[in-house]
């Protein structure tokens, strides 16, 4: 009898468990993961799977219906919206947090500020030595995110202005990898989501403005950006419940704890 009850409860749990799949930006990943853990603790029937892969991958997954929520650290491009609409998907974005793309260098580097113009020259390979921009460590090692990354897209738009990234750049798949590489390479410069800045790397000012809660919120930091979640149509069901949770006070506390800036 006991076995029947256990099997019955398992079947009941399986039938009535609510599933939600989330995929996309590695910048938004820590917020989504932490929020999913807390949400599942509060809702035992909820079964949330969270994956990274980059903003482009998440949006592509929303378009081919393999994810319920796409995390993105950039707004969807018109081309992606058109493809989505053609396939019967109506992408609706919700801003869940704010972020500044922090420019980081090795902690031993004396540089404290860089202009966007010099940043562009470094990332396009026109400046290759630190002494030309007031830094230390001789040759500059450029560390970038790969093309599937929303962080790359925003950096490309706001700094590179679509100019070609230097062929010498190391293209890495996550914020964490960029952070680790810069930490271990004396001449390195990279960029990561604000929430990933750790003690072992040095964040520097861009155009004399340091990324922090105030400068990102008032948009004076030049590399500020909103972080999005996209759904097919207005969020409904469990997706709505989960997004509402991130937008609630406890959800926005998670945003802050993960190093990002709450919208409220």
């Amino acid at each position, binding site marked *: 009898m006991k076995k029947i009850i256990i099997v019955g409860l398992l079947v009941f749990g399986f039938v009535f468990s609510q599933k939600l799949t989330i995929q996309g930006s590695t910048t938004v990943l820590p917020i989504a993961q932490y929020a999913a853990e807390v949400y599942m603790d509060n809702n035992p029937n909820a079964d949330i799977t969270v994956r990274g892969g980059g903003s482009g991958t998440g949006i592509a997954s929303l378009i081919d*219906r*393999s994810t319920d929520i796409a995390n993105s650290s950039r707004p969807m*491009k*018109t*081309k*992606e*919206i*058109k*493809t*989505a*609409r*053609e*396939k*019967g*998907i*109506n992408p609706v974005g919700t801003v869940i947090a704010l972020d500044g793309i922090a420019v980081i260098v090795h902690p031993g580097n004396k540089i404290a500020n860089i202009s966007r113009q010099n940043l562009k020259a470094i990332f396009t390979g026109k400046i290759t030595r630190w002494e030309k921009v007031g830094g230390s460590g001789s040759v500059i090692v450029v560390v970038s995110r790969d093309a599937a990354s929303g962080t790359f897209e925003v950096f490309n738009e706001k700094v590179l*202005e*679509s*100019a*070609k990234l230097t*062929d010498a750049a190391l293209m890495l798949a996550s914020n964490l990898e960029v952070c680790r590489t810069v930490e271990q390479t004396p001449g390195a410069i990279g960029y990561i989501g604000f929430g990933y800045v750790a003690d072992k790397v040095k964040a520097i000012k861009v155009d004399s403005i340091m990324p922090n809660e105030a400068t990102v919120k008032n948009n004076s930091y030049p590399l500020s950006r909103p972080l999005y979640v996209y759904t097919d149509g207005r969020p409904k069901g469990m997706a709505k419940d989960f997004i509402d949770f991130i937008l609630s006070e406890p959800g926005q506390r998670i945003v802050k704890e993960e190093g990002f800036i709450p919208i409220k």
Partner: protein
Amino acid sequence: MKQVILMFLLVAMLSFADAPIYGYFWFRYTYDNPMAPADVVNNKNFFSIERGYIRWKTSTAPVSVSGTIDITLKAKATNASDWNVRLKYAQADWLLPYVTMYLPETKLTLGVQKVNFGIMELWEYPVIEKSIEEVANKMSSADLGLGLTGLLPAGYGDFSLQVFNGLGYTKATEDNFEKALCGNLALIPVPGIMLRGSYWKNTAGPDSMLVEENRYAGGLKLNYRLVTIMGEYFGTKDGDVTGAGYMGFIEVALNRGLSVLGRYDIWDVDQDTDNDAYRIMIGGVNYRISDVLVAQLNYQRKKYEDTAEEDEDKVMLQLKFSY
């Protein structure tokens, strides 16, 4: 042989230049007229490489340059010269800086490029057969010329205006001063519904024997969850000869990897002449083996209006490999 050496030299050069190289190959097995007696049908079954795209792209904003080489082994190949290496696309795209603020991704394209006409532009070969325009031999999928293409705001569709030589990508030059014009507009008023209209006009032939060619297409594409439906009317007017046809297509995805498909075409090359029309019926299954490999199985029947002509059947199995 010369073509193959040139192609390898080009690919080696592009690899050295760090231009990303990508593309796909289609390996096909065809069984012609499986129901017919063996002694009346030649080449009952054969292997072929119908498409072998090697693509590269390099960009220095706001201009990007891309190209596609197509290597094929013609169906029913009998000797080494049946290997074909040709340039399918070779284009320079210039993203227009101010226009893109209102019409996103609007660009000027120069070179051998895709002809944005009718269902042909959308056709990603969910069944193995080409689009109705190409099967009827009335349009070429690529041509040499100049194009203006872009997106409507907020993903509501796209547009293009193109000027071509008008002879397709296999011929570099034409015999007259007349250029072909091609216009296309696609609207997506609500997600899942796309309406398309296309027009092509060309004056073909040598200067002494010019013939005006007109092509019209109007189409509808519907997407609802796991079902895709496409329909198109395709009309032609070459001098005094008027042709018309319809194509209907449906795909139902059974799960993420498996889908069943069907297509039905009617084409009448000259509406004023009897017994020159045909119908094509296709049934198929697609199976996505992995992200880079898709298997397609199609049965296809071509039925002629002229009862003196034998119907044609074929079974095709194709592997599409992308890299």
